[in-house]
């Protein structure tokens, strides 16, 4: 294996590895060893050294010789990256760095677009290709190509280009493999760029070979297509006029346009605009704003060529994206302006005030056109045509002067339009996605010019007229469309979103948490509580309400959808299925469900393990499936939904199901089940729970993918760390469901404050079923093994909190205290406490960073008096209590 290939392999493995997944760490360390050998052979000693150190370290992680796994793992990752860059630098000439800000923005956007492309490819593969998706993928690749070009990422650009030609050329099948390989490569590229904007582009050999494989497999016409691909690319701007061709006479440049009625508005086909249009509108406005700032700088006498570049880039980007979104009118204007700016840039035309005026006019008109996407008024057709003519003329150095008075007005009367129009018109149709809003807007643009124009002319600012013209046509569809609009919840608000750094957001959420504590401290202060004044109490309760609202609002800031997580899973299923030689179809449901950002980040790992498990062990090979009368293709369902106060995520497969017998046999072997127990009576839930134990595997063969019995343990640990629970349902031969129940948010919980002796504890309200003061007849002792209480026909074990937390104090007589009936998943039990002090929301805090995990305690909270109360982890508590009971 060559140096390049081995580093590629190591980097790839590194990306797929996580600190908790020990098998993949082993694989990684082997790859790193290989890399060290290769590097030594090729005379790159530093790479050899770094990689062998990294290999050592990753083995140390596996053999648990390191204290902080995360940290060590990070070191390994850094080493891999360092090797990667070192090799690149040794082989590739340094790249001229692009504008770092632009680059970062691109990298960020890639982090969402790449998974989307993958997702498109993977879903298309499983559902069969339509021309639509193929075209969509091609469009996206094309966008990528353009962006890479702007950022002078030459390798990336050429790869995208080749892939594009490949897609064009392949008439027989879609080159999915190549698309995915390219996505992987782009991911490693963006990851490298994020760390170092000047990073060299990674080795392309893998992608190139994938591309050539794919092209060999496809039509021999590829060659021809490759040469014509550039032309195809240009065809993406179909409506772009040929500037040279359309030269108007100097004397009366716009005479022929007089035939266009003055009131005729620009018509845009908004029917087929895709959902990205809203994002485009948002971005385009930013670009235009940047361009305008730059123009104003230039106007004030600056001669900085970079400013011209900024303006040029703005129009160029708008043109490109509008082209993909099939908005020919926008392309038309942007192209003309871009063409002019290009001449300025190459010093063919001097940067005169005339040019700047034209640029501003174009920017205004574009703003208006873009505003149409959000339901804004259309500009006049004649204005557009005249502007384009003037731009074209300017390219030849002619400035036919201001056109007829009204016609040249875009520069003056439409400037305030873009933003306010978008905002005010959508007041009526605000909840509409651009897609659904389109029919509502069209009539106002085409059929009712007569109605809307007088309004525009009489009103002083267009923004005030907008509400008066559009509500009528917009109102009716708005009602019908609202249900669909809800589904597009994210995209329709795009024009009102703001990018905020997560740090600031977390700081805000933390502050609000402190505010909640401070507010409670005031309210619970005995002095305040003793005030009989009604007004004070009323104001305090008002304050409480505001604080709660504020808290809810700030928490909602952190909510994100599961979409990207689920999209990653689609890719995983495909890869695992291919590796295991099975055919698996993934069905996804509820990807719009929102969860706290932190939770979403944490469930990735458990999901990966659950899905790997389901694909590898759950779903049978095609032959076995057919033999038992199932379809050849297995189905994996990934579902997310709300249930009670939590979110449930389920992974369901229609495979062979868990084998009760085999688990029980294994348990008996390991001595986990008392051999004297009647195995038939052990409930399913208990049996299935054993598979979460570390090292427990019933797999007969250990494969690459799973089978070592590590995964499920990781699943449970991660989910419990999130204060969630996991549950298994399974029917032999029919399949199994792994169900994760997760809290909506991690930072704040509703808790019941209970007292034991002088100590107070917080029990999450969600886990409390009920509480009662037991009577003597409800209490029994079973064979000296423990106390039980009869709760509505069920006998539940009683655990004394005081005993579990080794407290010397507290009530000892059950009849004088309270029993809380706690439930966690299927487990129920009574917990004995002295009394309940009240209910309140608390901010969960860790008990110091280096504190080892305490069974039964999930964290601490600061109560109103400033003292710390421990938060009871009901799951852990019940579990440890049960094991203690069994052991006793």
């Amino acid at each position, binding site marked *: 294996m060559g140096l390049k290939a081995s580093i590629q392999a190591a980097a790839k493995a590194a990306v797929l590895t996580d600190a908790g997944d020990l098998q993949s760490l082993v694989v990684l360390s082997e790859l790193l060893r290989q890399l060290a050998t290769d590097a030594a052979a090729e005379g790159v000693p530093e790479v050899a050294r770094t990689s062998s150190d990294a290999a050592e370290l990753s083995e140390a992680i596996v*053999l648990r010789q390191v*204290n902080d796994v995360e940290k060590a793992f990070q070191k390994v990752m850094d080493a891999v990256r360092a090797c990667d860059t070192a090799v690149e630098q040794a082989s590739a000439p340094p790249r001229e760095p692009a504008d770092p800000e632009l680059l970062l923005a691109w990298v960020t956007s890639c982090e969402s677009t790449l998974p989307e492309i993958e997702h498109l490819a993977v879903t298309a593969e499983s559902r069969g290709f339509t021309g639509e998706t193929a075209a969509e993928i091609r469009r996206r690749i094309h966008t990528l190509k353009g962006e890479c070009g702007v950022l002078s990422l030459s390798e990336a650009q050429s790869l995208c280009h080749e892939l594009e030609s490949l897609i064009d050329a392949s008439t027989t099948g879609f080159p999915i493999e190549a698309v995915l390989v390219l996505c992987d490569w782009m991911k490693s590229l963006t990851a490298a760029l994020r760390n170092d904007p000047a990073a060299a582009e990674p080795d392309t050999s893998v992608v190139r070979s994938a591309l050539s494989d794919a092209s060999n497999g496809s039509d021999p016409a590829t060659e021809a297509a490759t040469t014509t691909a550039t032309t195809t690319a240009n065809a993406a701007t179909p409506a772009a006029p040929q500037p040279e061709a359309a030269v108007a006479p100097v004397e009366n440049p716009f005479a022929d346009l007089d035939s266009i009625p003055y009131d005729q508005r620009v018509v845009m086909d908004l029917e087929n605009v895709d959902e990205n249009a809203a994002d485009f509108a948002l971005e385009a406005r930013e670009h235009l704003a940047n361009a305008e700032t730059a123009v104003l700088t230039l106007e004030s006498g600056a001669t900085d060529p970079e400013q011209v570049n900024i303006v040029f880039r703005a129009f160029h980007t708008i043109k490109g994206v509008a082209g993909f979104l099939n908005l020919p009118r926008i392309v038309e204007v942007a192209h003309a302006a871009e063409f002019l700016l290009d001449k300025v840039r190459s010093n063919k035309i001097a940067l005169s005030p005339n040019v700047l005026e034209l640029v501003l006019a174009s920017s205004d008109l574009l703003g208006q056109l873009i505003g149409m996407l959000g339901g804004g008024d259309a500009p006049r057709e004649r204005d557009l045509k005249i502007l384009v003519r003037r731009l074209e003329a300017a390219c030849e150095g002619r400035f036919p002067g201001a056109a007829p008075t009204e016609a040249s007005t875009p520069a003056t009367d439409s400037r305030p339009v873009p933003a306010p129009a978008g905002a005010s018109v959508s007041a009526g149709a605000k909840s509409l996605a651009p897609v659904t809003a389109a029919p509502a807007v069209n009539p106002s643009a085409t059929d009712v010019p007569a109605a809307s124009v007088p309004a525009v002319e009489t009103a002083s600012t267009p923004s005030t007229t907008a509400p008066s013209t559009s509500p009528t046509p917009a109102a009716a569809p708005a009602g019908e469309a609202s249900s669909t609009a809800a589904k597009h919840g994210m995209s329709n608000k795009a024009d009102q979103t703001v990018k905020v750094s997560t740090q600031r957001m977390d700081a805000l959420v933390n502050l609000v948490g402190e505010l909640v504590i401070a507010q409670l401290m005031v309210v619970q202060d005995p002095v305040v509580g003793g005030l009989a004044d009604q007004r004070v109490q009323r104001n305090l309760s008002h304050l409480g309400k505001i604080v709660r609202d504020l808290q809810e609002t700030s928490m909602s800031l952190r909510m994100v959808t599961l979409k990207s997580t689920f999209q990653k899973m689609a890719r995983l299923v495909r890869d695992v299925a291919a590796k295991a030689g099975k055919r698996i179809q993934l069905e996804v449901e509820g990807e719009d469900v929102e969860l706290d950002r932190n939770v979403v980040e944490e469930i990735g790992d458990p999901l990966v393990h659950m899905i790997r498990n389901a694909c590898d062990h759950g779903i049978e090979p095609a032959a076995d499936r057919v033999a038992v009368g199932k379809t050849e293709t297995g189905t994996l369902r990934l579902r997310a939904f709300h249930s009670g106060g939590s979110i449930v995520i389920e992974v369901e497969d229609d495979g062979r199901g868990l084998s009760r017998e085999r688990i029980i046999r294994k348990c008996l072997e390991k001595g986990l089940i008392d051999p004297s127990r009647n195995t038939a009576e052990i409930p399913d839930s208990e049996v299935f729970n054993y598979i979460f134990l570390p090292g427990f595997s019933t797999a007969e063969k250990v494969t690459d993918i799973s089978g070592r019995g590590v995964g499920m343990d990781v699943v449970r640990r991660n989910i419990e760390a999130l204060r969630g629970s996991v549950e298994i349902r399974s029917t032999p031969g029919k399949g199994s469901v792994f169900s994760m129940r997760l809290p909506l948010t991690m930072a704040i919980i509703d808790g019941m404050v209970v007292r034991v002796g002088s100590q107070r504890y917080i029990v999450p309200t969600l886990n409390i079923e009920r509480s009662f003061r037991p009577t003597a007849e409800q209490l029994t002792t079973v064979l000296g093994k423990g106390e039980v209480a009869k709760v509505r026909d069920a006998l539940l074990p009683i655990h004394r909190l005081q005993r579990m937390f*080794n407290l010397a104090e507290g009530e000892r007589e059950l009849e004088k205290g309270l029993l809380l009936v706690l439930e966690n998943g299927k487990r129920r039990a009574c917990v004995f406490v002295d009394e309940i002090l009240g209910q309140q929301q608390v901010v969960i805090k860790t008990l*110091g960073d280096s*504190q*080892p995990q*305490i069974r039964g305690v999930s964290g*601490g909270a600061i109560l109103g008096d400033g003292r710390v109360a421990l938060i009871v982890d009901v799951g852990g508590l019940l579990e440890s209590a049960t094991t203690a009971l069994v052991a006793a």
Partner: protein
Amino acid sequence: MSTHDRNDSNTARGTNGSNEHKFLTFCLGNEHFGVEILRVREIIGLIAITPLPQTPPYVKGVMNLRGRIIPVIDLRQRFGLSASDATKETCVVVLEAANDDGSQTVMGAVVDSVREVQDIPPAAIEPPPEFGCEIPLKYILGMGKLKDRVVVLLEIAEVIGMRERAQIAGAIKDSAAAGIAERRAA
């Protein structure tokens, strides 16, 4: 509760401008101890401490340090000295120590009383005696000789470093290590 910030102690610095050889001295019973001033974050009066279950006896519990929960250890217990009741001089020294990985552990230590900030140059520090010491040697940085007495200088990282972390993940790693052994054998 009285609060002295680290900065306050810094302003009370002696002739030597550097904080490097400065130690905060405190008492446990009749013995004097010292910790590097750079490790001391602040000193606060004794406030309510919430006990933690399943922790070694020297861990007194956790307390609220202005909205942050930090663990508190009892140095008397840690060093195997007899317990004593809290007096009005009893206070919590908030210490921070760097972990092996560079992160910081913040922890409170209950001491009988805080004395002063002392300059103890390296020349005045001697290695701990081989025997005859009540405190395990690994906790001791050295013996600082002052004019009138000897101060036991503590190795904070060892004292609060919680090296004896719980055996979380022990089981999982065992199984994984077995897996590797298997794999290598194969």
